[in-house]
């Protein structure tokens, strides 16, 4: 390795360009071989050139790194790389001394495959989920009747047409503002983010539909790009995501407020059926009229009832008084007869008592009263043999003489 020599100028040490470049190159040469991930852009491969050149671009902030690889090695990989593809490059930093150009000298390149993409997506998904970006409580309800609907779509006809046709068929008064963007490839993610922001600047837009028809896994990748997912999550208005087919779940679906299985479903979600809205209004109005009529009828009835009671009140008083007089007269009429009856009853009662007390009652039961001329005979000693006595019976009597005692 050539030594880097400086020229002394008085108290100053000065390097030639060649020496400086050589020095930096040597220093860089001590760095380890590493893997670098990025998107391939500006790929230049020419049969006359010994090396293939491309720029590796950081998809997040656009940082660039020149990469070179020997053409033979590059061709041997049979990667058929196209601009925008994500790759892992294994290489070491290198300074081309002649031009003072810094590059990564690639030893091998691996396409960032579906498996790697999936793993990266899973990591991103876990990270964003941990941040709460997909949380259910973040989801906002869609407006019942949007003033203007923002639509982010590719210029491919199908998805855009499906959304627009559905919206206009269901709800002809709907206003839609369409932002066409790339929906696949390396520029798509940034363009989608820009489109979302531009639509949000229209203050009448109160819901946004983000849609794209079906496509390959790679085609749909921009819809899982962290920038797009964050833009959807932080969008000023609710976002309906209808990307790919039912089985695809790009991360923007998780961040959106509502996920629609198809562009047509998204159209149905953002506007109501006009006839249903009108029917609801008419029903409300009919109910309004009916309830007011009922309230009126109820009050009229209550009023009529009160009037009837008012009118009846004097008549009721007269009736009540006349009834009272009638009753008094009846009692008056019955009074003398009652008095006679009471007296008769008292008399009967007295007679009854008298009869119970008289001896006749006893004689009727077979007893007799025996008397001498002077007294009632109560004891055998009151009489002597030969004395005449009078015997009184219940029916008549007879005289008798006492034979012995």
């Amino acid at each position, binding site marked *: 390795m050539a030594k880097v020599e400086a020229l002394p100028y008085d108290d100053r040490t000065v390097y030639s360009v060649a020496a400086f470049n050589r020095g930096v190159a040597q220093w860089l040469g001590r760095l380890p071989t590493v893997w670098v991930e990025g998107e391939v852009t500006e790929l230049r491969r020419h049969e006359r050139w010994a090396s293939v050149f491309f720029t590796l671009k950081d998809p997040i902030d656009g940082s660039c790194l020149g990469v070179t690889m020997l053409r033979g090695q590059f061709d041997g990989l049979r990667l058929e790389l196209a601009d925008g593809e994500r790759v892992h490059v294994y290489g070491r930093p290198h300074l081309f001394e002649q031009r003072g150009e810094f590059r990564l000298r690639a030893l091998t390149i691996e396409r960032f495959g579906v498996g790697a993409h999936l793993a990266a997506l899973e990591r991103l998904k876990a990270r964003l989920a941990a941040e709460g970006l997909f949380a259910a409580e973040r989801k906002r309800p869609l*407006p*019942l*009747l949007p*003033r203007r609907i923002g639509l982010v779509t590719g210029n491919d006809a199908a998805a855009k047409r499906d959304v*627009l046709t559905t919206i*206009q068929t269901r*709800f*002809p*008064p*709907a*206003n*839609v*503002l*369409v*932002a*066409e963007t790339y929906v696949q490839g390396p520029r798509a993610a940034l363009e989608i983010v820009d*489109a979302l922001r*531009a*639509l949000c600047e229209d203050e009448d837009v109160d819901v946004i539909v983000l849609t794209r028809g079906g496509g390959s896994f790679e085609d749909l990748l921009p819809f899982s790009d962290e920038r797009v997912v964050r833009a959807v999550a932080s969008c000023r208005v609710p976002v309906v995501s209808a990307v790919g087919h039912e089985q695809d779940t790009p991360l923007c679906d998780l961040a959106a407020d509502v996920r629609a299985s198809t562009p047509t479903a998204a159209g149905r979600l953002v506007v109501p059926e*006009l006839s249903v*809205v*009108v029917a*609801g*209004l008419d029903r*409300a*109005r009919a*109910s*309004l*009229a009916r*309830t*007011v009529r*009922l*309230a*009126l009828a*109820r*009050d009229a009835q209550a009023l009529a009832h009160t009037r009837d009671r008012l009118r009846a009140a004097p008549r009721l008083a007269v009736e009540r008084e006349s009834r009272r007089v009638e009753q008094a007269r009846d009692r008056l009429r019955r009074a003398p007869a009652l008095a006679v009856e009471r007296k008769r009853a008292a008399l009967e009662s007295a007679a009854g008592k008298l009869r119970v007390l008289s001896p006749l009652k006893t004689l009727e039961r077979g007893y007799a009263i025996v008397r001498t001329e002077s007294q009632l005979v109560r004891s055998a000693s009151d009489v002597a043999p030969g004395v005449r006595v009078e015997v009184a019976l219940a029916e008549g009597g007879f005289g008798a003489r006492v034979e012995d005692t």
Partner: protein
Amino acid sequence: MADPETFEEAQAELEQIVTRLEQGQASLDEALALWERGEKLYAFCRAKLDAAQGKVEELARRVEQARP
């Protein structure tokens, strides 16, 4: 009462009024006032729906037109 600003507001208020009337607790004067208000809201909502057909605009074209 202020005029409704949006269709949604008007529709929600109309529903409230109907519910209120259906419960039958409003006095007669109140019921009549609510009815009047309800009819107004209905007319507002219908007018919004019957208003000019909706339109589809392209954002890019709109941005171009906005340029001086």
